[in-house]
């Protein structure tokens, strides 16, 4: 059988081109099958090997298949012989004599064609599957995607594949994605892309198709208690607690935060540009058919049509996955998790100063963070340097990792390049729309009360529920606490 195969391919290699085709087809098929085996068994996971196995090898395979008939065509033209004559010359009569299942050549051709189709099918399917894996998206264009890939892996959605949100459903979505991918390969190859990459607000999949597969609006009910811990710049890095009861429900009656995406509610807005920071108008349509338009009394610009948008998840949750921290936020989160040692004096202040330094590269950042921290203690508290060396090392390592997670000099991605619109701490957030400039024709503005979205159970307080405790007679904040306690109880009873 093998000898028959050898004879067949030898006869097929009619000239140099035909021979090259045969060699290409055979070798790429063998290597492909080997890599496929490696991939299936989990031995090979590298994205570049994946690119080779599922894109380059199949391409070479097809190229080889094309070269073979070209070789035959060239020979035919050169010798002036007919195809029949050429076949007769290349293959012996025993190959051409018909048996019960046709001539052996025909059978061999059918077998090989079947095999080729099979290999191509496997390659396509495996290729598509490979390209659906986050590993591919995250590491194939590694310089470009490294920031997003890094933060994605540490995000709440790290078990949700990129394509679940970025590609969408159906053939067209897949086709668009691949086409866009080709464009991006072009941009990446010739270094034509912008750094930092602007948020692709116009090409994002609609949230209704993506986010709502898991987080559908009816799912949000009740209130969500959240305690935020800030640490002071004092020697003890004293913790201060802010506890919010977030009114996240979707109910039309209660008017919780997710009211914006409740069934029957359509909120549309026109922003000044696609940064979506400044609103020209905001329009809300209600289930009863009524609608109200709030117009920014400080602007008289006309919106461009592409900046008019129906609000969905990403208008607030703009960093649901690719979450970048602020220096203070990064330090406080690591302090809370214990990665930064709170027993070090002044550690909050030192850590934020070290982390927010301006470093041109990861290597410079590693050195700079270590030397910043050491220099502080050498100057202000030398005993700590010797006595708590291990804690300092651990803190420095945590800070270095935090820097590398959040700052990517190659992509010009610094602290604060991609602020989050959630809340109102990192950016204007909710107050982009909820402010006194956006008024309806009667002069009412979109409500901006603090307790509209959350009850406040503690605010920069020494305990997480300070507003629920009975304040002292001399407490200057007792009226505030009393108000907030009542507001909270009222929100529960609603």
């Amino acid at each position, binding site marked *: 059988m093998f000898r028959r195969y050898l004879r067949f391919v030898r006869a097929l290699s009619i000239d140099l081109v035909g021979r090259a085709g045969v060699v290409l087809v055979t070798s790429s098929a063998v290597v492909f099958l080997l890599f496929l085996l490696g991939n299936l068994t989990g031995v090979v996971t590298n994205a570049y090997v994946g690119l080779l196995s599922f894109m380059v090898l199949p391409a070479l395979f097809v190229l080889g298949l094309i070269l073979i008939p070209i070789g035959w065509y060239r020979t035919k033209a050169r010798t002036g012989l007919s195809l029949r004559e050429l076949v007769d010359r290349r293959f012996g009569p025993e190959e051409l004599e018909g048996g019960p299942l046709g001539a052996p050549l025909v059978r061999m051709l059918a077998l090989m064609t079947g095999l080729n189709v099979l290999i191509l099918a496997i390659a396509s399917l495996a290729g598509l599957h490979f390209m659906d894996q986050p590993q591919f998206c995250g590491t194939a264009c590694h310089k470009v995607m490294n920031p997003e890939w890094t933060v994605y892996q540490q995000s709440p959605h790290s078990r949700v594949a990129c394509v679940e949100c970025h590609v969408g459903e159906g053939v067209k979505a897949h086709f668009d994605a691949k086409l866009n991918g080709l464009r991006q390969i072009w941009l990446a190859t010739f270094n034509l892309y912008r750094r930092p990459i602007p948020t692709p607000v116009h090409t994002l999949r609609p949230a209704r198709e993506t986010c709502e597969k898991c987080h559908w609006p009816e799912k949000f009910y009740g209130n969500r208690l959240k305690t935020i811990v800030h640490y002071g710049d004092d020697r003890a890095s004293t913790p201060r607690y802010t506890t919010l009861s977030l009114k996240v429900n979707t109910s039309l009656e209660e008017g919780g935060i997710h009211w914006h995406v409740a069934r029957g509610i359509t909120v549309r807005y026109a922003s000044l540009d696609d940064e979506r920071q400044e609103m020209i108008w905001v329009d809300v349509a209600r289930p009863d058919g009524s609608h109200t338009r709030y117009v920014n009394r400080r602007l008289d610009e006309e919106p461009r049509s592409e900046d008019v948008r129906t609000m969905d998840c990403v208008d607030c949750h703009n960093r649901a996955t690719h979450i970048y921290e602020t220096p203070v936020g990064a330090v406080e989160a690591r302090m809370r998790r214990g990665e930064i040692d709170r027993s070090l004096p002044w550690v909050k202040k030192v850590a934020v100063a070290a982390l927010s330094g301006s470093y041109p590269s990861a290597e410079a950042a590693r050195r700079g963070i270590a030397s910043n921290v050491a220099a502080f203690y050498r100057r202000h508290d030398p005993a700590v340097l010797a006595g708590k060396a291990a804690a300092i090392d651990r803190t420095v390592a945590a800070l270095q990792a935090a820097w590398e997670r959040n700052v990517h000099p190659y992509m010009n991605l610094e602290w604060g390049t991609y602020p989050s619109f959630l809340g109102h701490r990192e950016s204007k957030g909710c107050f982009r729309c909820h402010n006194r400039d956006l008024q309806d024709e009667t002069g009412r503005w979109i409500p901006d009360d603090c307790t509209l979205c959350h009850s406040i159970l503690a*605010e920069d307080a020494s305990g997480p529920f300070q507003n629920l405790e009975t304040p002292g007679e001399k407490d200057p904040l007792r009226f505030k606490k009393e108000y907030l306690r009542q507001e909270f109880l009222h929100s529960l009873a609603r």
Partner: protein
Amino acid sequence: MRVSHAVVAGLVVVGLAVGAWGATGETTVAGRCMTCHKEKSPGLYQQWLGSAHAANSVTCLDCHKADRRESDAYEHYGAFIATLVTPKDCGRCHKREAEEVGNSYHATAGEILDSKDAYLAHVAGGEPVAIQGCEQCHGGKVIVDPQAPNKLSKKSWPNTGVGRLNPDGSKGSCTVCHTRHAFSKAQARQPEACGKCHLGPDHPQEEIYRESKHGNIFYTHRNEMNLDAAVWVPGVSYSAAPTCATCHMSATSTQKVTHDVGERIAWTLRPPVSKHKPDWQRKRKNMKEVCTACHENQLVDGHFYQFDATVRLYNEKFAKPATEIMKLVRKKGLMKHRAAFSNKIEWTYWELWHHEGRRARHGAAMMGPDYTWWHGIYDVAKNFYFEFLPEAEEYGDSEVNAAIEKLLEDNPMHNWMDRPTPELKKEIRSGTMQETYENLYGSH
């Protein structure tokens, strides 16, 4: 059974809470103000939180609450408030202080609207500079604008002028010295508080203080001034140095604190020719009492002996003759243009008394030698001899020229100009020159 009891109990608690919510008292309304303003104007909130007001449960509403019938009242998240807080509002608690301020010269500062200064700003400058330049110190008339979100016209708010004319009829603004929202005593006691207005070419009190020994010691020993003491008495609660407030307002061992800044000022050093103020002996005595917290009587008497002489020197040698000549020029209609301040000589005369003459007098009052002479009388003399008189002579009017000639030839203070220098120097050395000025010194 137990569970249902718990549920009922829970419902009762919640019901009570909701009941309480329905009947929100003023205190919880204030709590609501604080909740939002902590976020939306955190600086303001933090200033209040650290203030004596916060420590004594004085909340936003205590100052800002308004009756809906008041012209500047408006509804803000369900509560009627006014942005503008006037001495009348502050006087609800600080009664004596509000009364003293109301009776003080400070409270009349808004009357500048009809004075020369405001005229000059309007004709030579224009409304924007009158609003920002004049009214921010002197105080403007607060205009209620029903269309404005806070019911105040943008042309008249912000304004913290010391003589602000408020819609409720009161005059002034406490926040000019007690800056909101900390209303810190310590701040009002320091010279920078007064320096908000009392500085510059026409009344450089802050600069003079800085030059004086008093200022010198203050800036060196600021942290020994016990500035936030509840009762602040020189020689008792602090002794390093006096500030503006110490001499003009603060309590002493014998006097109460006063918010009428004129209570210890004997001369008016403001007008072209200085005069004693009504009841000036008592006021001078008040000031001397302050001085004696640190100084003995002879030093105090000596200072005022020197000071009074410099004021009279300015009056007699320059201010009165210049004013007389200016009157004559006006009376005879010699000036080319009709309007006030449309002729150069008017500006020259104005600077003579309003800038240079005041600098000299204030410098003398507060022991700033450089302001008394180089920024003061030196500039007055230079102006008088080489600008003002030549400009008056340029009209070629015989009556004016005769007056000038008479002054320069007959007046013993002025007739030095055509005499040989060695002779004048000899007179200075022998003391005969000084005798010319002997009558300027008072008896005490």
